[in-house]
């Protein structure tokens, strides 16, 4: 893991990781952006993150537009934030944009990620267990962490 710090010189690696984990735990939904021939397309998805922050997980049926989009363009972006729709959001809210590659999780990795996912969203069990539902993961390349309005950090997980 590597940092590109902008605006600040010194970043407490551990503290940032903890902040991301806390944010991800506090939010049930994320905005997922896929694209279709260059046309971006956003959705709300119930998500969770793996403990090492390398994966963001969500579920979708295979008949959806987002699933089809990912099939032709796996590069996606996700946004997780804690805004509360108040003016104070400008200094208080934190928003994290993730970029990476999305794919359906198969094989042994699925069990572990499924467990993580259902621990956070137990009420989605029937949905996720349907044979028509795909468990998806975004293998994150970078997190763009925005706080205090203009404070932006980039957390690189992959080159």
């Amino acid at each position, binding site marked *: 893991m590597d940092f590109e710090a902008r605006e600040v010189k010194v970043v407490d690696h551990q503290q940032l990781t903890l902040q991301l984990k806390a944010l991800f735990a506090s939010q049930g*939904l994320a905005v*997922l952006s896929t694209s*279709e*021939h260059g*046309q971006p*397309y*956003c*959705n*709300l*998805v*119930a998500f969770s993150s793996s403990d090492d922050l390398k994966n963001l997980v*969500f*579920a*979708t*049926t295979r*008949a*959806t*537009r*987002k699933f*089809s*989009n990912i099939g*032709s363009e796996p590069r996606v972006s996700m946004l997780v934030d804690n805004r509360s729709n108040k003016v104070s959001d400008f200094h208080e809210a934190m928003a994290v944009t993730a970029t990476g590659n999305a794919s359906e999780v198969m094989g042994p990795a699925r069990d572990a990620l499924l467990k993580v996912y259902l621990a956070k*969203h*137990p*009420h989605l*069990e*029937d*949905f996720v267990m*349907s*044979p*028509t*539902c795909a468990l998806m993961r975004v293998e994150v390349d970078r997190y763009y962490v925005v706080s205090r309005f203009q404070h932006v950090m980039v957390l690189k997980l992959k080159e």
Partner: protein
Amino acid sequence: MNLVIPLQAVAEAGVHRVGGKAFSLGILASRGIRVPRTLCVTTEAYDLYARSTGLLERISLELNRKDFSDMRWEELWDASLRIRSMFLNTAMPSTLVKKLMQPIEEFFGDARVAVRSSAPGEDSSEASFAGLHESYLNVAGIYPILDHIRLVWASLWSDAALLYRRELGLDVHHSSMAVTLQELVDSERSGVFFGRNPADPSQAVIEAVYGLNQGLVDGAVEPDRWIIHRSDGSIISHDAAVREGRMVPGPAGVVRAPLPPDLISVPPLDEGEVRRIVEMGMRVEGLFGAPQDMEWTMSGPDLYVLQARPVTAGGSGQADDRAWYRSLSRSYDNLTRLWARIEDELVPEMVSVAKRLDDHGLRDLDDGALAREIESRVELCALWERTYREHFIPFAQGMRLFGRFYNDTVRPQDPYEFMDLLRSDDLISIRRNRGIEDLAAVVRKDPSLAGALARGDLSRHPGFQQRVRSFLDEFGDLPCSTPGCAREGRVLYDVVLRHASRHDAGSQQSGRTTEYLEEYYLLFFPDEQQPFARELLRLARASYRLRDDDNIYLDRIKVHLKAALDEARKRLGPRADRVGDDDIPRALRDPSIISPVQPEAECVHAQAGFAVRMRQLVGQPAGSGIATGTARVVSSRQELSAFSPGEVMVCDAIDPTMTFMVPLAAAIVERRGGMLIHGAIIAREYGIPCVTGVPHAVELIRTGDVLTVDGYLGIVTIGEGTLQEATAGAQGHGGGCLGGTEAL
């Protein structure tokens, strides 16, 4: 906070924590009235369970799949069954178990207890709806007790409670359920005291049975009844019951046992005991300040009050249709009697009525006689439709009774697993389809037959003609899809041709066999309970089979009405299009009543022309599997005749007259909701993906739309994969729903 509190503490805890039943028992006990030894599990235990397990959100999801006003009663039952299944399959968190275990074990030890609902508000005088929630008698041991607490919690969401959700203020995030645990009294006689007779407010009523109260409450045992003067407690009248049985504790739960011969001629109460119960009832009324609906039981000389709640202003008679729905809930005994009546009397009568009606003679009737014939057939259909509503629909409860019993015992992940145990090749519609398929198989091998069928002339194929005749003898012709099709067999020819045009055939029996499932089911019962388990299965199978067949029997009568109407329309010519079926006899007698103006055609696809379109519709998963195909909206018999193999059938409701097209469908989408309805049953039989209960399905989906039908999740997606759509110049996305609703 204590989740389990003794009766002495309920007053302090308050009715919102202990529920109405426990609260009034607390008051009775504090005034020295004898009540069973009781503990109360507070609403906080329910809240803790429902919140910490994610159940609350799952219930919300279930109940918000569609607008309540779009839900049929059958769908309420289905929703309730699924919620119950969630409770059955969701264990209590260990922290909660720890908190409940110690006080309950300490208080009851090995004693047998009754686990009863005590919902806050349930017994208040504003909303007294007796019997919405459940009670379980004769439960012993801490784990069975904990298990039954969950069942009582689940009954907060019973179908009856959902029916009265508005009156009850039922709400996922605010409603809760307390539970009372009562030591089971060794009941010799039991009953109710009704402090005010709904028929005459100056009277009170006592009902009494031998054994436990359960028999009286659920209608399994007929009670003796006394009418009492409220003013002086004197007996006005005594109606003796035909005393046959009583409910007694079994190895677990209660069982109905025959009454010992020496008790048959003896009323359960003598006059002195009647007086004693009246005195008790009046005393309790004095305590609460209003006439009471009080359950009591006697063990030796001791009289116990089991519960008391105010008599509601309107009595128990609810004037709306919901009372009819609730009356559908039948006991096993009642259903067994109904079964005999249907199979031995009603079905044979329907068959013979249908046979007696002769359509060949219709052509020879003059217009007046034809009008009379139509009227008499209308009346006949109405009569049998009433019979259908009064007897056949209630008998469908047999499946439901079994479904609950199966789920309570076997606890499957899929709450509809029991349906696989009921499947039958013996349904008329399935046998009929098999007959069609056999004919189609012959046509596939001999192409010259296809031409002959298309021409409607089988004279050169006597062997095949003979087979067609035996089919027609057994099943009759398939219902006409075009008015005026009088030539026998023509509809069948057409359908056989269609079946022949596709390769694969037959129902795809999936997975485990019925025999295997039956063995598996019976494994759950000790020897002494096996006979009952088998009997209930037999009843449910009959219910499943008749639920389907009865439609066909009814249709065999209705088809004759249609034949008579068709004859009339033929005579009236094109003018007939301006006359509704109801006015046909009048028009026959006096054609001048027919309006000269063509009524404006009703616009069925009101949505057409709007820029908004639906992308995804949600119903109930009623047949598992997934399929993509072109939609064929079938809203009339004519449209059914245009149905091609591989299309997705979209309709208001599949009735048995349409069943023979089902094997050709890639999937089925139905507006009418329910898991146990005809369309769902047939789709399951053929392993065809099916989604039912899609509001406005026939208006929102258009013939030609590409549909993906997800029969696992109950989702219908309209439109092709987005790639194709993009090249075709995409339009508005995700009609109104959050594009990702499916992931929410």
